[in-house]
């Protein structure tokens, strides 16, 4: 009884239902009664995006003017009318040396996005050239038992996104490995629950910064002999510890609240304890576990930026912090680019989890 898999089903399943509406529009299949639906699902979001960009443009314009006026005014009071006139001309000419530093406009952000991509391509080419250049030398070094020379240039924006994703997934896996087994144990045994409850209640609200410091204290001592950079280890462990609580609590709740009928079935069939956990209790608590995992992943992505920033571990958080410290002409717009990238990746991660959740859980209607 295989059901045919259509584009519509797949996109609905992944929570991208609006894509099929778009497809229908272009293929001319859109029915008249669907038009209202189309209006709501495609036109309204597009309109609100345009409105958002428009407001942003206006806002950045007025902030720009305010900053420019202030600069001219300062020049006037400090250095006299000639300096003020020179400043006014300089700002009007668009010279980078005297641009007001404020909220960038959408156009500037878009330019920065393109420049970041260009930068990535340059770095990638540079890296490829380096690898090619050192290939022969590295082969010799490895043959001689020495470590190969690696590229130590600056990572590009894309590299940093990938690093961030690695950190978040490592942290997420750590959260999963810790939280699910403990959650199951706590859910199964009221004794363990009362033993662990204070622990959960106290550590759940602790801020990512404090988790980072705690992990730093411990990992620093454990890796005291190592000369490698431990910032990645510290940041992924911190991310995992920060984000695991939702999964822990949800798993425990799911396991503790399995329908009594299913437990009775397990008893009547005389399932062994392990069989009972894997065949009855876990499948029945999967929807709740996945709700927890979804929260965990989004929390992980959210705290990642702060933790990378603290840990100086390469990634988007460090990128944002370095751009802020940098204070270059286009730093502000690069920070905004990073903000959008962070938001969009967070959204995609959420959809990914939703898709997996729909895939594995039996009740297909409770995914939101």
């Amino acid at each position: 009884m295989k059901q045919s898999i259509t584009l519509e089903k797949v996109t609905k399943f992944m929570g991208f239902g609006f894509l099929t509406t778009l497809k229908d529009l272009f293929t001319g299949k859109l029915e008249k009664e669907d038009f209202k639906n189309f209006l709501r699902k495609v036109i309204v979001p597009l309109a609100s995006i345009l409105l958002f960009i428009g407001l942003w443009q206006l806002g950045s314009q007025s902030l720009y003017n305010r900053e420019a006026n202030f600069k001219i005014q300062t020049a006037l009071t400090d250095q006299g009318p000639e300096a003020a006139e020179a400043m006014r001309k300089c700002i009007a000419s668009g010279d980078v040396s005297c641009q007001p530093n404020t909220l960038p406009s959408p156009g500037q952000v878009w330019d920065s996005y393109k420049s970041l991509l260009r930068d990535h391509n340059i770095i990638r080419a540079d890296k490829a050239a380096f690898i090619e250049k050192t290939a022969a030398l590295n082969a010799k070094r490895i043959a001689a038992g020495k470590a190969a020379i690696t590229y130590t240039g600056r990572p590009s924006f894309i590299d940093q996104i990938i690093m961030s994703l690695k950190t978040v997934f490592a942290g997420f896996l750590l959260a999963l490995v810790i939280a699910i087994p403990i959650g199951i144990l706590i859910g199964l045994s009221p004794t363990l629950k009362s033993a662990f409850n204070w622990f959960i209640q106290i550590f759940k609200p602790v801020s990512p910064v404090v988790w980072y410091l705690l992990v730093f204290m411990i990992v620093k001592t454990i890796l005291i002999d190592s000369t490698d950079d431990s910032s990645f280890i510290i940041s992924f462990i911190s991310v995992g510890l920060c984000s695991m609580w939702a999964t822990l609590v949800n798993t425990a709740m799911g396991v503790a609240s399995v329908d009594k009928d299913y437990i009775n079935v397990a008893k009547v069939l005389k399932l062994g304890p392990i069989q009972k956990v894997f065949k009855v209790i876990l499948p029945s608590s999967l929807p709740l576990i996945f709700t927890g995992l979804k929260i965990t992943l989004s929390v992980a992505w959210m705290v990642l930026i702060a933790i990378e920033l603290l840990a100086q571990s390469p990634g988007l958080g460090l990128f944002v912090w370095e751009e802020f410290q940098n204070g270059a002409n286009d730093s502000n717009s690069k920070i905004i680019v990073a903000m959008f990238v962070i938001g969009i990746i967070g959204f995609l991660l959420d959809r990914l989890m939703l898709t997996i959740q729909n895939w594995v859980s039996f009740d297909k209607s409770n995914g939101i």
Partner: protein
Amino acid sequence: MAYLELNNIYKSYGQGDHATEVLSNINLTIEEGEFVAIVGFTGSGKTTLVNLINGLIEPTSGEVLFKGQPVVGTSHERGVIFQNYSLLPWLTVGQNIFMAVKEAFPKKSKVELNEIVKDYVEMVSLSHAINKRPNELSGGMRQRVAVARALAMKPEMIIMDEPLGALDALTRGNLQDEILNIWGKDKRTALLITNDVDEGIYMADRIIPLKPGPKATLGPEFKIDIERPRDKTEMNDNQNFKDTRNAIIEYLMEIGNSRKSESQGVYELPELEPKSFVGRFK
């Protein structure tokens, strides 16, 4: 020796003053191959009684003997069909039954087990739906799966807890026949709990009313002397059927009434005369 024996069962939940006495002084004997029905009002403790017999709960005092041995925990010898189907929604029909069969016959190979699953799915005529999940099935189909699951474990006794309670009248009739058919094939001992007197008479050899709780206890038994296979339409004209049915319903009504009258204290009402408003609002 009786096949299943309940001696002076007393069951209460809670402690001391807060204890709710559900069953008391329950005595029941079922012989091998017999089909016994217990009828009672909803909330009279029927499910508690069933759970005592299948071993999900233990009596506060008294003993449940199955083939002379006290019942401790559940057993594959006593198959249970639950009121609310209790199928695992994440497994398909086949998987639900397979899981039960695998537990009942751990030594059989996977091929043999699958063979058994196929046979029983076919028996309840659900072969077309073997790969469907319970939420894709109608209530009647789900209950048939539950029946197949219970029977596939080849229990020596089938315990049915209002198995058809949630079904519409037509499906219910069909399933009654199916269960009787299966029961008739190898004459396993069967215990049916129901709130439908007609169902009890149609299916069972003996009907025992359960006087409603608190402190529910079994009433006098009624033997059904109607030859099998029974025909539903003919039975309506059968004098024996009518008499038994009336007797049981009368008995149950009587308990119901006596229970009502027990709780009916006499309230002294004040003597009031309706005021006359006539002519007051002119």
